[in-house]
């Protein structure tokens, strides 16, 4: 494994740990997306990886070198880790080329033109940060990080400050840059859609505890607990034979007649289809349809039993990792 995180613990006050027993590995070249709510410890974890914070227990190993353990602490600039900070801060008194080559070792100077080309910045080298768009600033930040050929690239909320109109384009550009350079990357985000489109693996984090670490499709279809299931998309609860199951909205079909009857509360157009909020079995459900329905009208649904998701009784406790029954 290229990156090994073993029993990592981090706290500022012992009684309030931020990260508890974090344990996972990353394969070389993978993009791993770290998902969690604000304050869940995502950025602290990145800072630990980058050497901006010392860990309290466990170890971090990158490319067979222990970076941090109870006895070892390798300083930030010696770790071969590139960090693209949130808001992608560029030095405002330096132009693009000076930002990219800031404090750059002479060994990497011959990489400049290649990186500029890869990041599409060749024509912008003389511009200052205030003369760049958000996307361009972000590419400069990434160029500055990858020109040093890091073993690991860390991206902290890389798309949070971009307009939704250019987000998709920038995301694709960043994805291509990372994949072309082949750098192992960890990106922190709270946007699920970002993770699905860019990550090889997703790591879900809640209250300092790893909830699930797997490929996006597997997590979506096979969540380890309610938190992971809800974090990745809408979920509708159904009681069948005194047992609680869950259903994803896209696995529900609206039919002319069935045993499952509900009342439409609201129907709103959300682009290519209608989102319906309806009451089923005294629960509020979300489902989608090509057709519109008036509020108050009755609808019937059906689904495949294979799409039912069931958790054990510990489902809502994200401090443990309950097993799925199905």
């Amino acid at each position: 494994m290229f990156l090994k995180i073993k029993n990592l613990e981090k706290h500022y006050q012992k009684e309030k740990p931020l990260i508890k027993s974090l344990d996972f590995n990353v394969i070389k070249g993978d993009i791993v997306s770290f998902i969690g709510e604000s304050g869940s410890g995502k950025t602290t974890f990145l800072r630990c990886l980058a050497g901006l914070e010392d860990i309290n227990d466990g170890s971090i190993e990158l490319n067979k070198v222990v970076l941090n353990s109870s006895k070892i602490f390798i300083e930030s600039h010696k770790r071969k880790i590139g960090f693209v900070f949130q808001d992608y801060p560029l030095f405002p008194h330096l132009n693009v080329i000076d930002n990219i080559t800031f404090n750059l070792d002479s060994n990497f100077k011959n990489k400049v033109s290649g990186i500029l080309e890869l990041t599409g910045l060749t024509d912008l080298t003389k511009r200052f940060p205030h003369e760049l768009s958000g996307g361009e600033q972000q590419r400069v930040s990434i160029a500055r990080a990858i020109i040093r050929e890091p073993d690991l690239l860390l991206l902290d909320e890389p798309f949070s400050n971009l307009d939704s109109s250019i987000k998709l384009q920038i995301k694709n550009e960043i994805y291509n840059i990372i994949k072309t350079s082949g750098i192992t990357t960890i990106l922190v985000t709270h946007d699920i859609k970002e993770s699905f489109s860019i990550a090889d693996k997703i790591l879900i984090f809640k209250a300092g505890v790893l909830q699930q670490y797997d490929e996006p499709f597997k997590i979506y279809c096979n969540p380890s607990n309610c938190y992971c299931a809800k974090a990745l998309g809408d979920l509708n609860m159904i009681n069948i034979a005194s047992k609680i199951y869950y259903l994803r909205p896209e696995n529900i079909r609206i039919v002319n007649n069935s045993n499952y009857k509900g009342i439409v509360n609201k129907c709103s157009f959300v682009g290519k289809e209608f989102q319906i909020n309806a009451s089923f079995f005294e629960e509020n459900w979300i489902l989608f349809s090509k057709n519109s329905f008036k509020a108050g009208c009755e609808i019937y649904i059906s689904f495949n039993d294979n799409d039912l998701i069931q958790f054990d009784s510990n489902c809502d406790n994200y401090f443990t990792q309950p097993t799925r029954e199905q």
Partner: protein
Amino acid sequence: MEISLNQIKKNSFKSLIVVLLAFIIVLPIIALFVVSIGFDTTNFFYFADYLLLDYTLSTLYLLGLTIFFSFLFGIVPAWFISTSKFKGRRLYDLLLYLPLAIPTYIMAFSYGDILSFSGPFQSFVRDFIPSLTTLVNQDYLQIEVLSILLSFSLYPYLYAACRISFTLIGNNYINLSKNLGLNELKTFFKIGIPLSLPAIFSAIFLISMEVLNEYGAVSYFGINTYTSGIFRAWGSMADMETASLLAILLFLVVCFFFFIERWITNRYNYSFKSNSDLSPNFKNSSKKLILIHITSLIIIFAAFVIPILYMVNNIFVDFDNIDFFDVFKLSKNTIFISFIASILIILVVLFIQYVKRISNSKVLNVVGEIISLTYALPGAVIGISIILLFAPINDSLGFLLIGSIPVLVYAYFIRYMAVAVSPILTSFKKYPKKLDDAGKSIGLKPFQFFRKIFVPLNKNAIIIAFCICFVDIMKDLPLTLILRPFNFDTLATQTYEYAIEEMITKSSIYSLTIIIFGIILLSILSIKQSKK
């Protein structure tokens, strides 16, 4: 439509008042230029031929050295306090501000006496280290020593500006620099200093203006500067014409510095996102901790503790001869005049800034620039200008306006108005124009909105502006010396008069009283600023 026309009329009326106020502010300067046109320039050209070069060189030399030492004393501790966490950090932070409460002339008088042949320093060396007696037995009333003493009082301008700037750079850039392999020293030179250039230049400009304005210290040290030249021509030689022409020259020099500062500040005014993580970030090795403590303590002791201890000692030595009634009377005079002038300044600044905000007029922006120039004008220039303005009125009315309290307050008003503008304007800018629209939408008239919303919202900034004005006016010497009423003394003028008569021990009680008032107000200011 009718309502909006009325509104425009009302706004125009208010704008007219603001323009009128600006005219009142620049009136003495206009008078200086207009009256000087008909002057006999023989004496001035004699002065220009034989003395001007000497005055210019010594003014610039003093200026350069003072800036250099202020830079040294201000920037290094500001960096340590802003970026490192250590025990005693908050106390050092406060103590490093406090030398601002010691007027430059008091610093110069105190150290002049401390370092004199009969002073404590040389006496100590003679008694305990006799081998060094010859070495330390020097004439310390030199321009280089004066520059160090001036920088003891003036470095807090740089310290305060850099402290804010280094803090606002925040941890984003510091973490980034660590990640890119920079150590603390490189981060300081490659990031801290370049990103703080506008703040540094603004502070250097303020220090330069204080040095150009300085009279008490330079006259005590016998240094020839433009200001001392104005006083010499006006006071000793009774040559108002030469004094006026020198004042014009000094005015032009100040304008030159003013526009240079504006140009540099705009040129290097980088826009960057200051981030919310402003806590100190650098780790402290034991060597670095020793360096932090030594640097901070040397500055605190030299610029604050030693002069204060010296004054306290003088008070104990001379305790039986102190006229406490006189101290009380002069304190009352000082507080009275500083209070009246500060209140007037705050009211006018609030009015001007609020009208500027609601009217969006370009003319009012020019007015703002004019007001900010006034702080750069040395007291001697304003003093001479006011004498020129009021002399004809004195003659025609048959009673003395020059040397009256209203004219002295008017002079303070011109000189110190710009001091109040900065905190109030910064605070005003924090609140978006939508807030004004919200006020209008719920039916508040502009004055009601100002009273009920703006004054409470900007309360801290108003208190800060008042404290700064009060401290500056209380310390003022050149203007008060020129324009004070007959038989009206302040703590500053009394300190100066005793010092110039070589009665430093007697002046200490007056000096210390000014400093105590200054410390109280600066502490309030510091608390309010941290709340802000």
